[in-house]
């Protein structure tokens, strides 16, 4: 029932004209692999992010924040759940294979989840800075993504992340308008999270980036990073916080922010799951997976008996 294309060039012409690929279509295998890996990375990151968020449910200050953290955890685990289904439909790996790869340290997830959130201010920095960076990236993917099921999920994820950002802004204001101790606490968190957030957009895109060519991404990493820097350098310095980059400056002519040189070594370490907190995070996730195995087995046995 699906469509097919005579050649890769013809398929690329279809994508360039704004065509949307559906799971039933006979897409080129290279496209299938790229879309799959991209969605798998996103799903893994939502899951690892959700688990990180969950650690803060008992520690959130006050009932209202606890409710927000609970809801964010459910959002992120729910996004992972949906994304794993969509990735599995591509037929490259099953959902269980993706999860087992992740827990056996063979999977990849976003760099920001390879670091430890030390204090509640770190959680606020994540909600205020990292979620905003994720939103900028996801909006750009949503705008021109050529894979239909992923594009439709992103539309909802973007709406929900926008709502997380409101929480982030509200929590940041508590620190910005708070006591000297609170301001120091957020500054220390900013010192930890500024560079990982810049890294999150990825190293500068190569001219022949397959993700751009296949219309999975629509904007280069450095352009998205620049968008974030322009907005957040202004906001943070406006609140009197100091990003930990001695070379960060405003270009006197264009009025635009220019960062110092970015050291990519920490990002590369996270690609190999060798970030500061990678081992603990993966082991923790694997422990949950093993501890809940009996639940899955019980449900499967009920389903088998019913069939």
């Amino acid at each position, binding site marked *: 029932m699906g469509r097919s294309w005579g050649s890769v060039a013809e398929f690329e012409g279809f994508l360039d004209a704004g065509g949307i690929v559906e*799971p039933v279509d006979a897409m080129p295998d290279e496209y299938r692999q790229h879309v799959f890996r991209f969605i798998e990375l996103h799903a893994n990151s939502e899951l690892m992010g959700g688990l990180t968020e969950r650690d803060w449910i008992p520690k959130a200050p006050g009932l209202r924040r606890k409710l927000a953290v609970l809801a964010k955890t459910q*959002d992120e685990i729910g996004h992972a*759940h*949906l994304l794993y289904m969509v990735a599995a439909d591509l037929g490259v790996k099953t959902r269980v294979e993706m999860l087992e790869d992740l827990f056996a340290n063979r999977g990849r997830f976003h760099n920001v989840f390879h670091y430890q959130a030390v204090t509640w201010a770190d959680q606020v920095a994540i909600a205020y800075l990292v979620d905003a960076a994720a939103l900028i990236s996801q909006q750009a993917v949503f705008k021109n993504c050529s894979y239909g099921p992923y594009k*439709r*999920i992103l539309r909802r994820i973007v709406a929900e992340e926008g*709502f997380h950002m*409101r929480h982030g802004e509200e929590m940041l204001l508590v620190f910005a308008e708070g006591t000297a101790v609170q301001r120091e606490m957020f500054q220390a968190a900013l010192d930890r999270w500024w560079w990982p957030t810049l890294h999150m957009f990825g190293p500068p895109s190569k001219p022949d980036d397959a993700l751009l060519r296949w219309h999975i991404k629509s904007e280069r990493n450095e352009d998205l990073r620049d968008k974030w820097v322009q907005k957040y350098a202004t906001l943070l310095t406006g609140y009197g916080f100091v990003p930990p980059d001695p070379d960060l400056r405003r270009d006197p002519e264009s009025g635009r922010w220019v960062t110092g040189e970015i050291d990519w070594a920490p990002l590369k370490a996270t690609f190999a799951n060798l970030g500061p907190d990678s081992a603990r995070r993966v082991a923790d996730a694997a422990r949950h997976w093993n501890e809940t195995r009996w639940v899955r087995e019980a449900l499967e046995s009920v389903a088998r008996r019913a069939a």
Partner: protein
Amino acid sequence: MNRSAVCDRPDPAAFGQQNAVLAALAGVDDPEYPGVSIVELGLLEAVRVDGPRVEVDLVPTFSGCPALAFIAADAEAAVRAVDGVDDVTVRFVSTPVWGPERIAPGARVRIAADFAVAVAVPGRPTSCPVCGAAALVEESMFGPVRCRSIRRCRACGERIETIR
């Protein structure tokens, strides 16, 4: 909506003010469905206008909904901006219980078209927002938010979040 609570003031001046307050609330979007108002979602239960004082009763979709504080703040700001209003109380009531049948038919169509989210109204077939087939089967009781489950369309294969 509880009409008796909304329309229990026959005084024409108060009635005009009531309409102005309702119009203001109709302009408040739900934080998770930009473009769909809280009135269309069926969150508004009653409005009472007493001179410059306004009370608004809202029904939460789920009692643990994390958006409640934002919704209340947005509703309060919108009503406060109405001429002649200087005291606004917005509260969430626990009865009646919200259900998807409270979503206005036009909003159900927009939620499907803009967010690819289905609305499961009890006693009515739920169609797939992507292909239109009435072939959704429950896949997971839990989705990203408490008010939505995940269904799968047997016709086109899409995973559909469904407001329940």
